[in-house]
């Protein structure tokens, strides 16, 4: 392989290390420290979990634009069962996951069986999810959550935040799911060529529904991670996650040679975005700078993939 090919193949890893070196040189006292790494891992955990869910949906060749709304809805579900019914923390977590699964099921059925294009279906379901959220919470802020619930965000294991461990564990689980199981192979086949998959005996509709339910479960988990850390629920807390979640997944695409969305790539993509945001903040850059740099990084990464795909077709 030529140096250029290697550089393209490992562009995400190179960008990752490059960003680390750059910020370490720029802020040697604060950036390359365990405290900072821990903070980035902790703060990235929400986006990690969402990006992993998004990855599964992208693998089967669909889109889910309801991510932010479903996160809000599941947050409302978790918080309201604690506030209104004094349910314990574990039951609140289950409520969030259940709400996420139901929203995912609705998305999946609308896309796979009613055959609405996923772009439209998930926008519609997202809007409905947002409406239900506000109907439950009456657009109020909930504070004073169950202390056990808040411990999710404050617990550390060997000095590693529990939230980061949860995100990593979910990443590992989904990596195994997509790479080593029959379902993973089915999902990848559906995303690549749904007709051929159907003719090979892959239950295409079921695979799609499962992917959307998995996405919903991820949104539910992300909601728990957000609310436990913020120690409150506030309306529209899911805003702003949709774009970076997809950005991370597309950054991760380069890790497979630009061919397939993959969990490891998405995970590294999230950490890269987190590192850039933190590093720029440490350099006292205005907050819009982070969004600007993230956008530029994404363009560069994805255009590299586009060029390579064109090359593959031209052969």
């Amino acid at each position: 392989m030529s140096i250029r090919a290697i550089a393209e193949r490992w562009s995400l890893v190179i960008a990752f290390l490059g960003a680390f070196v750059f910020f370490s040189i720029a802020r040697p006292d604060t950036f390359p420290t365990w405290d900072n790494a821990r903070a980035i891992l902790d703060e990235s955990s929400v986006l990690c979990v969402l990006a992993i869910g998004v990855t599964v949906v992208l693998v089967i060749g669909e889109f889910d634009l309801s991510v932010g709304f479903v996160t809000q809805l599941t947050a409302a579900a978790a918080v309201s069962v604690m506030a209104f019914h004094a349910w314990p923390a574990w039951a609140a977590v289950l409520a969030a996951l259940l709400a996420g699964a139901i929203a995912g099921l609705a998305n999946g059925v609308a896309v796979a069986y009613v055959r609405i294009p996923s772009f439209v279906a998930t926008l519609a379901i997202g809007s409905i999810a947002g409406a239900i959220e506000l109907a439950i919470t009456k657009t109020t802020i909930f504070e004073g959550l169950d202390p056990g619930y808040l411990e999710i965000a404050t617990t550390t294991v060997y000095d590693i935040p529990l939230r980061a461990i949860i995100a990593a564990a979910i990443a590992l689980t989904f990596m195994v799911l997509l790479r080593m199981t029959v379902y993973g192979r089915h999902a990848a086949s559906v995303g690549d060529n749904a007709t051929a998959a159907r003719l090979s005996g892959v239950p295409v509709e079921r695979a799609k529904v499962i992917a959307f339910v998995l996405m919903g479960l991820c949104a539910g988990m992300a909601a728990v991670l957000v609310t436990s850390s913020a120690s409150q629920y506030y309306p529209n807390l899911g805003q702003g996650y949709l774009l970076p979640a997809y950005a991370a997944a597309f950054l991760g695409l380069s890790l497979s040679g630009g061919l397939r969305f993959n969990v490891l790539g998405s995970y590294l993509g999230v950490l890269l975005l987190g590192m850039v945001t933190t590093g720029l903040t440490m350099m006292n850059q205005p907050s819009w700078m982070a969004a600007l740099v993230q956008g530029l990084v994404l363009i560069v990464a994805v255009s590299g993939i586009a060029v390579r795909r064109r090359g593959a077709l031209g052969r």
Partner: protein
Amino acid sequence: MAVSAVPWLEAVGLTKRYGGVVALEDASVTAHTGTVHGLVGANGAGKSTLVKCLTGIVRPTSGSVRVEGRPLQLGRPVEALRAGIASVPQELTVAPTLTVAANVMLGHEPRRRVGLIRRRELDRRASVALESVSLDVTLDTPVGQLPLIEQRIVMIARALSFNARLVIFDEPTATLSPHEAELLLETVRGLAHRGVSVLYVSHHLREIEAVCDTVTVLRDGRVIRDLERATHAALVALLAPETGPSASVDRPDRVAGDVVLELRAVTGARLQDVSLVVREGEVVGLAGLSGSGAREMLLTVCGAVPFISGSIALGGRRLRSGDTLAAVEHGIGFLPGDRSLGMFPTHTVRHNVALPSLKRYARLGFVDRRRERSAVEGLLDRVALAASPEAPVTSLSGGNQQKALVARWIGSDARLLLLDDPTAGVDVATRPEIHSQIRALTQAGVGVLLVSTDEEELAELSDRVVVFERGVVTGELTSHGLTPARVLAAMTGQPLEAKHTLEEDA
């Protein structure tokens, strides 16, 4: 046909390497005005690479191309087009909802200064191009409404609309019935007659014999022979030295097994009252022109196309209309004629081959990759495909991709195989291998429904051939009457003879 002394196009010493792999080595080829020049060779012999070098899609590692004596800038599709080199790709690349005129002029519509399209000029130029391929259709018909053959001819007209002086055809008759193929060959001859030169790439040696004035034979990326007026026999001898004529292989008489597939009075959008039985170990050929119902039969049986009335039973179990999943689960394997319906392009050969039988290599939902890999290696061996299971499937040539898809169904538990042109794009040397694999499967009790645009293949493989015309079964040829000539006659609309044969055999 007078051959002028200076060739219109002269390619000298073209070499293309991909890393360490040599796709084309020192290949030279010439094309004269008003002649048809054939290009033949096994899968991976370098035909497509050579064509891509000429059309500028691929920049050769070394070598040169001269057009009318002037050097052509290589690796630039626009330059090739400007010089008058156009190609008609193997796949159908029309925009089905656009009109005939818009398709012909697609990408180079005559414009006004502000960018608006000059409709009348567009129609005029389109009709000039259509006239030169003798296609008589209304300019504002959406292309998708035309029969397949006319869509193909629209593609040829598009190539000509660039003022092409050399038109390159890559396997143009791959999905056409014999009758349609003949129409296409006539169009090719017509082009040469008008002074266009043609480069004709095909595995169909009879077509090469019928239409080409000169032929270049490639093997392993090198030109091994240039021939004038090549005969079928001479080409077969060059391409498949070991294989003699195999059309008259004696079929061992088999005891008919149990019924695998039974259709009773099936009626669908393009089928009428079709009843048919396939037994274990039997190959039933379906013959007919495109749109006759032969191919539609396969799609209906595998559930890709619904039926309205009647019943389809697989091993005694009734299949619901349009339920592909149940059909595949109960043992139907479908090898589509259009590879884009079968391939997973971003995946490895292993993934492509193993998918339908994945459950066999899995425990508790986890795939045992080692077992999968060794099984796939065995299957690749059986279709004589020398590729790593881990290679991306798109790194294989078209014919080798076909072999991989055949391997997929050889390895599955299918009880009934639906084969649509199983050797489409496969070279002469590999064809018998795929055929013998199909025979081995039937000996193991698999039933086969075979659709082929190649009458020799139908005659060679089938135990009997059912003839379709306009969605209706019009006759049946049993093993005694199965010669390519008879199949061809029955396919191209001589139903009386076919029925006659039926009575004769009964």
